[in-house]
């Protein structure tokens, strides 16, 4: 399971282990090969890009993830308004040259597949479905416990404070 901690103030802390990251990246690579998709992104629902595959050079994938997460959030509000109790599971944007297929992976993550119009939607659907199953399995596997105390210690906050001072001069 992805290490998720609920802090006292209610905020959520998600930690992805090295092993989970490797599996995710492998699943994305496979999906990219099988579907010939131009780009594949895996991100979390708060808009944070986690991993990407395909030819993403020249594509601002950080912004793409933030927009895609908002797309999901907006459509789940839409779902409520039209009387759909569950969230919409997938979103599809059709263009003249490229299409974008978005699908949720569990409650907290989603997948973005950017592909050429010459690739059929059916093919994308089949392989994406399989990839989502694999991703869910990877996310559910218990990874090694990670001690975030070693990640964010008091030294870190002092150094971060200094770095911010330098950057914001």
């Amino acid at each position, binding site marked *: 399971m992805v290490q998720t901690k*609920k*802090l*006292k*103030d*209610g*905020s*959520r*802390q*998600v*930690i*992805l*282990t*090295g092993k989970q*990251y*490797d599996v995710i990246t492998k699943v994305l690579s496979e999906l990219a090969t099988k579907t010939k998709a131009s780009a594949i992104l895996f991100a*979390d*629902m*708060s*808009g*944070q890009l*986690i991993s990407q595959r395909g030819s993403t050079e020249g594509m*601002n994938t*950080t*912004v793409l993830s*933030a*927009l895609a*997460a*908002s797309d999901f*959030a*907006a459509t*789940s*509000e839409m779902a409520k308004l039209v009387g759909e109790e569950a969230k919409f599971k997938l979103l599809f944007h059709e263009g003249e040259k490229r299409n974008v297929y978005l699908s949720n992976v569990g409650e907290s993550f989603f997948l973005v597949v950017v592909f050429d119009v010459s690739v059929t939607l059916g093919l994308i659907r089949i392989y994406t479905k399989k990839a989502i199953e694999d991703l869910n399995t990877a996310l559910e596997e218990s990874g090694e416990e*990670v001690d*975030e*105390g070693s*990640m*964010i*210690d*008091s*030294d*870190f*906050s002092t*150094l*971060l*404070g200094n*770095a*911010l*001072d*330098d*950057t*914001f001069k």
Partner: protein
Amino acid sequence: MFINWALQEINLKIVYYGPGMSGKTTNLEHIHQKLDPSLTGDLVSLKTKEDRTIFFDFMQIEVGRIKGKKPKFNLYTVPGQVYYASSRKVILNGVDGIVFVADSQPHRMEANIETLLDLEGNLKQDGHSLDNFPWVIQYNKRDLPGAEAIDVLQKRLNFFDVPNFEAVAVKGEGVFDTLKAVINLVVQNVQSQL
């Protein structure tokens, strides 16, 4: 907060909240303009034809590696107008820290209060509460003639006694102090709960 152990990345989400026209987008524009381009990504604004934020603005900034770790800050604004309530709610998903940008003009006091209550309500739905969440207040537009006195603003808006900053965002005054303060609060908050 999202930690990617493999890449040693720490990602934080900071949201600028406040009434319409209080200067949330202006804060981000200043940060984007002033920071070294190698540390900041594109500033994306989803605006109406009238230049009002319809959904959000987004920008990611970095400060380089610290003890081998790479902190990244994702900055968002929400649309201020009352009727974009559901957009505001969805942007708060996964938020780690908030900057409340208040408008110092006396006639905007009601709008400030209304938006603060809206923020409190939205946070509650996510299980947060303003009294222990990392957030700061920025009193913006201090240069305008007739701007409300700080102690009046403090009394009406800062009932949890959070750090507060005076700002003139169009000139960049107070913008980085505010951002630095909220980032520090978020990091302290995480540490105190380890």
